[in-house]
């Protein structure tokens, strides 16, 4: 089936759609160097293609296109309640990219967007400007890789590097860059920063194989994590989302044991643990996209608009993973 798909579907980023106003932006030119064989199509506004109603997210994932645009509004958002703020009172996130090159079965983006195409906002300098305005009022904790995976696309856009240069100039800014990639090598030459946290989502291999399509295996993520730690970066591990699959205890216990056999637990900055949770409206759309997903068909309970495992199951999973993690890392460093 995979071979059939390969011959039927155009390769990823076979087409690059570019907003007329973004055509001459230096980042556009830089990005296009990586797609010399792509069809270039000029568009007026990225929403003309990204926000159409009659799209098929699942099929688009088999041949995603790239959209280069200018971000004109909502340059920064307040952090969502479902996301851990790690004790920071001024928690924000920003989207310099929308969508991701990976294809996780449980990804909330398939409920959030109508398109699987990847949007890159090339005017990152305007987002920097907006952050600087806010920094004049108060310090900021900013997540830059929520609705995407910036490090996975670093070789093309280099935004991780640009954010690092920006963070270096602003000590009252703390940035979290979250990733599932094994691409630390793309930024390994950069001197580690006190106010930047590299956060890796870590999952057991059976979950990676079955539910985190196109993402690197655990071993490869850990090589990247080890590289970052050795270099002196603050590294956060995210055992999140925990999935209630068959033999989850065995899989997560083994993953934690293996993780701390590969990386020095005392060097880890902190750890976050959370079960799968998603807005009920997104879940509805996600189920529609992946009608045959056992993972998404689970009879989740909904409270305050958020669907997740029932309280008992949530507690059980969190407690187990917390205890196993606490065998290696001091409890103050674990956020649940």
């Amino acid at each position: 089936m995979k071979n059939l798909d390969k011959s039927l579907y155009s390769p990823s980023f076979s087409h690059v759609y570019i907003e007329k106003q973004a055509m001459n932006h230096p980042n556009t030119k830089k990005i296009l160097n990586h797609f010399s064989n792509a069809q270039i199509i000029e568009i007026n506004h990225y929403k003309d293609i990204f926000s159409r109603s009659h799209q098929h997210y699942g099929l688009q994932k088999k041949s995603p296109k790239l959209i280069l645009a200018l971000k004109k509004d909502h340059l920064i958002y307040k952090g969502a309640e479902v996301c851990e703020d790690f004790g920071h009172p001024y928690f924000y996130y920003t989207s310099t990219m929308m969508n991701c090159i990976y294809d996780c079965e449980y990804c909330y983006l398939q409920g959030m967007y109508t398109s699987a195409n990847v949007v890159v906002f090339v005017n990152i300098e305007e987002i920097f400007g907006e952050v600087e305005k806010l920094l004049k009022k108060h310090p900021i904790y900013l997540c830059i890789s929520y609705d995407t995976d910036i490090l996975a696309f670093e070789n093309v856009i280099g935004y991780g590097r640009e954010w690092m240069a920006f963070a270096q100039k602003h000590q009252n800014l703390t940035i979290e860059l979250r990733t599932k990639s094994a691409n630390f090598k793309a930024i390994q030459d950069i001197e580690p920063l006190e106010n930047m946290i590299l956060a890796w989502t870590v999952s057991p291999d059976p979950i990676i194989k079955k539910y985190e399509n196109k993402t690197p295996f655990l071993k490869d993520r850990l090589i990247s994590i080890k590289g970052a730690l050795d270099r002196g970066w603050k590294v956060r591990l995210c055992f999140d989302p925990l999935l209630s699959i068959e033999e989850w205890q065995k899989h997560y216990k083994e993953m934690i044991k293996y993780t701390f056999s590969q990386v020095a637990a005392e060097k880890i900055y902190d750890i976050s643990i959370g079960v799968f949770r998603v807005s009920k409206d997104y879940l509805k759309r996600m189920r529609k996209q992946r009608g045959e997903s056992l993972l998404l068909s689970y009879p989740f309970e909904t409270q305050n608009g958020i669907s997740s495992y029932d309280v008992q199951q949530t507690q059980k999973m969190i407690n187990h993973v917390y205890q196993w993690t606490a065998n290696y890392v001091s409890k103050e460093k674990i956020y649940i």
Partner: protein
Amino acid sequence: MIFLCTAMYNEAYPFIKQFNLRKDTSHQKFQVFKSEEITLIITGVGKLKGAIAVTYLLSNGTVNASDLLINIGVCGTNNTNIPLGTTFLCNKIIDHETQRAFYPDILFTHPFKEASVETFSTLVKDNNMDLEGDLVDMEASGIYQSSTLFLKAHQVFFIKIVSDYLYTDNISKDSISKSIEDQAIPILSWSHKVESGLLNNKKEFTEKEKEMLNQVVKNLKLSSTMEHQLKQLLKFYWLQYGTVEEILKQYMDIECQSKKEGKKHFEELRQKLI
């Protein structure tokens, strides 16, 4: 099903001839030709006629996730570097009058060149005119807008064959058919490949399971919220074990006298399904 639409009979003729399409005389307003796998409609010239014909065609029955709609026709260009007879798959459609642009999803590999097409309401004869599109036609924007009411953007294709450099005086009906003739087989064989790739093997409850489910909902006097929950639970069970017949069988003969009694059975069934 592959739905073909052409503006003129001469554009349709190569397909009618090569694929033995038979006229379906049950249609009075449009000429429709059919085989088991292909339905072809002649829309008439112009975007409004194109939109009306496609709406007529697609609202006449149900459309499936593997169905394709292909608008095939000749077009003009003012780029004389493009050889006459070149076939293009359009990746952008610009409506000249409204200046709105539409983008069919190009998800599949294909043997054609790609270009943008600009749809005009009137015949363009001026080859010095400033054009936004690489190609010029009279139907694409109307057909795109009407077809995407029924189909997703990856199921709609616009294949245009260059017939002129915006001098239309020398174009005979025969030359239109001739331009398309050589392309008919490659277009259709590619379409069949895409159609089979999209064939939906989606698994769902059998008719018997659906009937049983309805009966159990009735028997247990479930509210619509509980019915929705039950469907979700059954789906979860069904994805694991491939059937829900055995479990539903246990509730086929229970007739609850009250909602309270039904709720008790529902809770018991819920426990069995998780």
